[in-house]
C-alpha cells in the first residue's frame, strides 16, 4: 500500500531530509513512525500525501507512483487517502457536519448520501450530538475526532496521521488512538507519526524509526 525505494529528499542548500529510505507497508497494517523533532517524519508524510516530491527514488501509495504522477492526477490520488494533522485543520466557519461533509461534496455525492454517511461516521466518533457545533465550541479531543471523521468519511485505503495527539492530554490521546485502531479494524491502512514512545509501547504495533532522515525498523 505504501512503498519507498531508495528515496531521497534534499532541500535547497543541500539539506538532506530523507536518505535512501526503503519502506514497505502492506494493506491493512497499523504502523507507527517515531523519531525526534526534525528527524524527517513530516517530510516523509508530505511525500506520502503528494504535497511534495522526492528528489530521487520512488514513492508508491495506493497504486500511484508519486514521482511520476501528473499534477492533474494528484487530486484523484488524494481521494484515496485520508490525512490527519496535529493542528486539526478544521474550517472554523463551518459546523462539524459541514467539515466532515467536505470530502463527500468534492467527490460529488448526493446530499441524501452525504447526510447519511456523515451521520454514520459522526456516530462512530461519538459526536452525533455535536454535528451543528462549530470547531471552536469543541474540546481538543473532539476537534481531532472531527478531523479523523473527515479523513475517513470517504473510506480511503490509507490514513496517515501526523502527530494526531501532539496537542492533546494523555487521556484524550488514548481515546484518539483507540479511534485510529477502530478505523484500522475496518481494513484501512493506518500510518501514524508520533514521538510519544510510551503510547507506542502500550499499543504493540509495528514501529518504524526515523532519525536524521534514515529509516529503520524498531
Amino acid at each position, binding site marked *: 500500500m505504501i512503498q519507498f525505494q531508495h528515496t531521497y529528499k534534499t532541500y535547497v542548500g543541500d539539506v538532506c531530509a530523507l536518505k535512501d529510505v526503503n519502506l514497505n507497508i502492506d494493506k491493512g497494517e497499523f504502523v507507527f513512525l517515531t523519531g525526534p523533532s526534525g528527524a524527517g517524519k*513530516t517530510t516523509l508524510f*508530505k511525500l506520502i*500525501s*503528494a*504535497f*511534495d*516530491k522526492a528528489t530521487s527514488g520512488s514513492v508508491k501509495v495506493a497504486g500511484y507512483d508519486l514521482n511520476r504522477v501528473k*499534477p*492533474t492526477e*494528484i*487530486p*484523484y*490520488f*488524494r*481521494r*484515496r487517502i485520508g*490525512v490527519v494533522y496535529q493542528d486539526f*485543520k478544521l*474550517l*472554523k*466557519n463551518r459546523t462539524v457536519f459541514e467539515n466532515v461533509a*467536505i*470530502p463527500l*461534496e*468534492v*467527490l460529488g455525492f448526493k446530499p441524501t448520501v452525504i447526510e447519511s454517511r456523515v451521520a454514520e461516521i459522526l456516530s462512530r466518533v461519538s459526536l452525533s450530538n455535536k454535528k451543528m457545533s462549530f470547531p471552536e465550541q469543541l474540546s481538543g479531543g473532539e476537534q481531532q475526532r472531527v478531523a479523523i471523521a*473527515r479523513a475517513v468519511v*470517504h473510506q480511503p485505503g490509507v490514513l496517515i496521521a501526523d502527530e494526531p495527539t501532539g496537542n492533546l492530554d494523555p487521556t484524550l490521546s488514548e481515546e484518539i488512538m483507540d479511534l485510529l485502531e477502530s478505523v484500522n479494524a475496518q481494513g484501512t491502512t493506518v500510518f501514524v507519526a508520533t514521538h510519544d514512545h510510551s503510547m507506542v509501547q502500550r499499543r504493540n504495533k509495528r514501529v518504524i524509526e526515523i532519525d536524521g532522515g534514515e529509516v529503520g525498523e524498531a
Partner: protein
Amino acid sequence: MLKICWKSFLRSWKHNATVQVTTISVLCGTFFVITAFALIHENLNGLLSRWGQEVQMTVFLDDDIKLEELDSLKTGLESDSSVKEVTYVSKQDAARQFLNQMGTMAPEFLGDEKFGNPLPASLEVSLASGLSKGSGFDRLVGLADGLLKKAGVEDVSYGQGWIENYASVVNQFGRSSWFVIFVLLAGSFLIVGNSIRNSVNQKREEIEVLELVGATPFRVQAPFIFEGSVFGLLSASIAIVLAFVVFQGQSLVADSSLQFLGLSTELQFLSVTKMLLILSFGLLSGALGSWLCVRSISTGWSAASRQESLGL
C-alpha cells in the same frame, strides 16, 4: 456545483460584507459610466438616423441635357435601393418655386421683369431611411459621386457639410467610447481581481483543506469565479437601473426646458440588446477578473509550496 458556489458566495458575503459592498459600489460606478457612454452614443446615432430620413438629394441638370440622358438618369436612380422617390423639377418649375418662396419674403421681387431664369432643372431624390447612418453615409457619398460622373449632371447637393460633420462627430464619439469602455473594463478586472484576492486570502485554510481531500483545481477555483461573476452581473444590473433613473430625469428636463429642440420624443433608453450586452460585459469581466486571480491558486502542489514558504 452551482449550489456549492452560491453557498461559498453567501459565506464570503457574511464574513466580509464591507469589502463586498465596496467592490460592488466601485464596479457599479464603472458600469454606470459605460452605460452612460452607450446611452449617449445610441441617442446621437438616433438623431443622425432621424435627420438622415429627412435628407433629400438634389441632382442639378445641365441646361442642354438630352431627353434620353434624363430618362436614363431617372431610371437608374429609381432602380437604386437607396432611393425612395425621384421627382423631376423643370427649369420653369424651379423658377416658379423660387418666385413663390421669394414672394412670401419680398413681394416686390415678383414684379421684376428683368428676372430671367438662371435656375437649372433638377431631379429631387428622396433617400431611403437610415441612409446617412453608419455605412449608409458612405453609400450616400458613393451615390452622389457616381451621379456627378454621369452625362447631363451639373452638380449634386445633399447637405454634405452638416451631415459629414455630424457623422464625423458621432463616429469620433463612438471610437472614443470604445476606448473609454476598454479602459474601464480593464479597471474592472483589477477591481474584481483585488476583491477576489482578498477573498482567497480569507479562504486560505479552506483551499488547503479542499486540496487535501482531493478537490480538482476547477472545484477550488469555481466558487471564486462565480463570486466575481456575481459581482460583475450585479454591478452592471444596478448601473443600468441607475442610468435609467437618471435618463428619465433628463428626459423630463429635455421635455420642459428644451422643448423647442423637440428632443423629448427622440430620446430613447438603451435597446434590450445593448442592455444584455452591458450585462454580459459585467458577467464576463467579473469572471475573467477573478479567473486571472485564481488560475494558479490550486496546482496540486501549492499547499506544499505554501507550507514551505511558511517554514513548516
